[in-house]
């Protein structure tokens, strides 16, 4: 019989995990038993939910929950105990493998639904728990953005607007007269336009390298491109793909 259990050691000793700051400074959700807090962390550079690399994502203010994570998306969760005996302790996460799998500190959403994450101490006792929702990305959204760096204001889960009002969504099939040097961002969304968290495999490519040059990492969900003529950019995020047609205005 398949055993739906996995044990995942998360390094919540601050020095070991690179944890920074205090709980009050960061978006987090309280554990359902009030014994600690759970933090969403970006697993890789291509998580559309994270404003900087490998920092914590925002909590959905409308629900008080973590943002929904795209099925197939990678993410991390950090648990910090509020209890006296839990200070500086190391905790493990336990969950159901039907919904989430673990590879060291990285979790991968496996199926649509809600899953519990239970924080257990070194003795195997459960201290607190939280639930995370996984949803299938049905669309991807490509936007022109201001900078290669993620902007200061992170994506708030469930909010359909683009980041900080600075991104301009690019319609599918439209031709853009992008400036010579542009930054594009791709994020996974639901049918109703909610941006999903979780890092999906991301690849930018171009069939017209003479006209469109990818300057930055092609695996980041934000890409720096230099456009010198009419061409195409293709972005694949998870199983979804979109082509951006550029008109190539004069740099």
């Amino acid at each position, binding site marked *: 019989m398949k055993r739906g259990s996995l044990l995942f050691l998360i390094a919540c000793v601050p020095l070991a995990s690179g944890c920074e700051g205090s709980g009050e400074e960061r978006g987090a959700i309280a554990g359902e038993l009030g014994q600690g807090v759970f933090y969403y962390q970006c697993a890789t550079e291509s998580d559309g939910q994270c404003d900087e690399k490998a920092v914590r994502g925002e909590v959905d203010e409308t629900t008080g929950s973590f943002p929904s994570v795209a099925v197939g998306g990678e993410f991390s969760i950090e648990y910090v105990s509020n209890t006296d005996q839990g200070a500086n302790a190391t905790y493990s996460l336990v969950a159901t493998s039907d919904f989430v799998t673990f590879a060291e500190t990285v979790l991968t959403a496996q199926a649509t639904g809600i899953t519990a994450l239970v924080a257990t101490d070194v003795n195997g*006792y459960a201290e607190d*728990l939280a639930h995370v929702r996984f949803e299938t990305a049905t669309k991807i959204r490509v936007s022109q953005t201001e900078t290669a760096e993620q902007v200061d204001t992170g994506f708030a889960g469930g909010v359909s607007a683009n980041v900080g009002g600075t991104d301009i969504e690019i319609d599918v099939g439209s031709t853009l007269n992008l400036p010579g040097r542009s930054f594009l961002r791709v994020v996974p969304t639901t049918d109703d336009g909610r941006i999903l968290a979780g890092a999906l495999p991301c690849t930018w490519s171009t069939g017209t390298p003479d006209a469109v040059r990818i300057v930055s990492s092609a695996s980041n969900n934000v890409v720096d491109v230099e456009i010198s003529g009419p061409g195409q950019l293709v972005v694949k995020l998870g199983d979804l793909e979109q082509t951006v047609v550029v008109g190539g205005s004069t740099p």
Partner: protein
Amino acid sequence: MRTFGIVQAAVVAALGLAAAGCQPEIDDIQVVIDSQPPGEASFSKSEFRITHGTAVAVSVTGVAEGEELESAVTLHISAYIRVVERVPPEDTDTIGSRFVLIADEVGEGTATVSTTDSGGELFIPVVVVPQAP
């Protein structure tokens, strides 16, 4: 001295009950749900029901002849639900043994509930239901 007398009386009473075959047998349970799971979760003597993938924290107290048993509850579930004991409370007055139940797989099984100082066991059907679409 007074404490010693009380302990003596308790021991004598327990021995007397045992000798007379009157050890209380667990015949019911009280389950307090300590967290609010996002899916269906209900617990009674007749059935444990929980939603696949979710977890719920509970405090379980054995009952014999209408009286709460103060002894610790042992909970074993053969499959489908994983039982994780919770961090022991600092408040020693807390009654009820505390667990987090994780619904690992959809299916039907059986929970066995007993207490450390009472006789008998309860066998309770367990159902893990799929998540609503």
